[in-house]
């Protein structure tokens, strides 16, 4: 890394990472204690730390056109040399007014739009939306539809984590995992393509169940995929888990405590890596998740390395779920009895699912017409991104890249 700034040299070298002054924790020597919150951090973002010896602060724009921001995220960094004093995220470059569009479309017409929010996990988005409307209609998908939904959603979780791993490792400088993960993700996309004709924005589910019956050989292909991908996940781990560079770039980087994570509303793998054993699939089961046996992997340190381990473990748990589901798909219809014209009764409903990135919620207000009166999406990426500031304070610029990667944001979902 580059030029020292008069700062204690152990802060500068990445090779000394384990000894690094414990990142964002140590703001106290700067006498900055006012405005601190639950976890000891300033969570209001109002008071950036002062520079060392009152040297000049440097304001630098990172993005919106920056490959490591995974889209069009602009982060304004306030730097003391190479050390990050504070950040501000500027978002909205991809804002399409999805919630406004929803108010002007029927429930059925809006369904494909949700695929375009978190476009690397379109199936999860579709599941959340369909279930929310079903709840509003007070109908339930058929058991067979639920199993198909679980299989596809978990496949999508693996695909999402694979894409995350590839790009995240690439950001940090490891090139090979990207090729491995994209090679294997392709197999998932092939299954999606055969099932519904689309690879990315799948629109796989409909309100009340699924539009398509599984194609001939679906179960066999899914089982083959399970056999194919299990050793591949080990392969990713051989590249990274004990890799010295990887560990030094990720351990103790972007630490967030459980208390801070909860206070900031962070969910998903980021929350679990901080040691909170909470997964909506277990806490408030939806679809058919209550019927499957799986575990919630948790971390202990809440750093980038733990988040990596949690996601790797989650991929293996997803394989477990898929295996149980594909061996037990019940017979029966794939569509519940749903009226042709969807007109939910007057009322409000909130429904959320565990998307690959965290809690994805839909709050829908119905006025009894064919269009939602108000549809609010509670996007996990948007809320998790808010924790970036807490996670990068005190780190180096290169770590910002690692932390943006580890939060796993999709700007389509942040900006909607």
């Amino acid at each position: 890394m580059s030029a020292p700034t008069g700062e204690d040299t152990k802060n500068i070298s990445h090779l000394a990472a384990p000894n690094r002054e414990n990142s964002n924790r140590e703001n106290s020597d700067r006498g900055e204690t006012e405005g601190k919150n639950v976890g000891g951090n300033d969570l209001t973002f109002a008071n950036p730390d002062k520079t060392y010896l009152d040297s000049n602060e440097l304001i630098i724009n990172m993005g919106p056109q920056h490959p490591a921001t995974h889209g069009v995220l602009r982060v304004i960094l306030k730097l003391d040399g190479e050390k990050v004093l504070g950040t501000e995220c500027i978002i909205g470059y991809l804002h399409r007014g999805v919630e406004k569009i929803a108010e002007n479309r029927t429930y059925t017409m809006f369904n494909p739009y949700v695929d375009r929010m978190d476009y690397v996990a379109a199936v999860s988005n579709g599941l959340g939306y369909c279930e929310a409307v079903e709840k509003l209609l007070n109908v339930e998908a058929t058991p067979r539809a639920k199993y198909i939904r679980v299989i596809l959603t978990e496949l999508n979780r693996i695909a999402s984590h694979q894409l995350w791993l590839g790009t995240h490792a690439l950001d940090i400088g490891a090139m090979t995992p990207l090729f491995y993960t994209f090679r294997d993700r392709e197999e998932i996309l092939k299954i999606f393509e055969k099932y519904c004709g689309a690879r990315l924005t799948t629109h796989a589910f409909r309100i009340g169940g699924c539009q398509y019956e599984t194609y001939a050989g679906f179960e066999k292909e899914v089982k083959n995929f399970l056999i194919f991908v299990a050793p591949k996940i080990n392969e990713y781990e051989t590249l990274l888990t004990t890799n010295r560079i990887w560990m030094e770039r990720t351990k103790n980087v972007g630490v967030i405590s459980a208390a801070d994570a909860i206070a900031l509303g962070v969910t998903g793998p980021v929350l679990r890596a901080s040691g909170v054993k909470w997964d909506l699939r277990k806490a408030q089961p939806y679809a058919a998740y209550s019927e499957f046996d799986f575990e919630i992997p948790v971390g202990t340190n809440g750093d980038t390395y733990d988040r990596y381990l949690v996601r790797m473990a989650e991929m293996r748990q997803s394989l477990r779920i898929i295996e149980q589901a594909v061996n037990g798909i019940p017979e029966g219809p794939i569509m519940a009895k749903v009226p042709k014209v969807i007109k939910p009764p007057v009322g409000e409903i909130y429904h959320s699912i565990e998307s690959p990135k965290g809690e994805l919620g839909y709050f829908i207000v119905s006025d009894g017409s064919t269009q939602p009166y108000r549809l609010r999406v509670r996007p996990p990426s948007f809320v998790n991104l808010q924790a970036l500031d807490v996670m990068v304070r005190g780190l180096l610029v290169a770590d910002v890249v690692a932390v943006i990667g580890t939060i796993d944001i999709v700007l389509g979902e942040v900006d909607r």
Partner: protein
Amino acid sequence: MADDAKTPAPPPPPGGEKKPTAQKPAAPVPDPPPVKPVAPVAPAKPAVPADSATPPNPAAPAKPAGPVPLLWTSPLVEKYRSQYGTALEGQTYLGQNYLTVKSELIPNILRLLRDDEQFDYCVDITAVHYPKREKQFDVLWILYSFPRNERIRLTTQIADGASIPSSVSIWPTANWLEREVYDMFGIQFEGHPDLKRILLPDGWKGFPLRKDYGILQQDKEWVQINLGIESGQ
């Protein structure tokens, strides 16, 4: 929504407000208003035996009338009702509980819910616009409690132009969520550390999720100055 409980008639006040721009395709023709709740419900009953895979679900209970919000009785509601009286009302709809409170209670009740009732996770803050109502906005907090594994919604009504105390000091996550509510609805949160637009550009005029903001409407002036084009359409 309070009126819903007393009069479960199909067109209750909030629902009665038609969307200004909504063209409802074909829907009004086959459906005379009073039959409304029946439409989405009908298929459950006349189902042929072949569909017996579906029944274990809500098909049986209370379909014909359509679900209505019921009074929510729980120790939590009773505790706060004894404290605040009619300023607070608990209801439940399709198994989801929500409290309707007067806006004066807002910072206190949120803090109590976090500290005494362990609702430690603020899932979402959002708003709904009812232009024909005197107090035009519903502001909502969706809360979750990790220890209780329970969700609760808190709703309050405020008038256009009125402000509401910020909850950033209670849940730091409210920072961006309140900014988004301000951005989309123009609701002011008092005491917010940095209340400014978040998704739309700073100089934008208008609040898009208000019902009087058209779907094609845009801040033409902003578009012309900043993008150098006549119109974004």
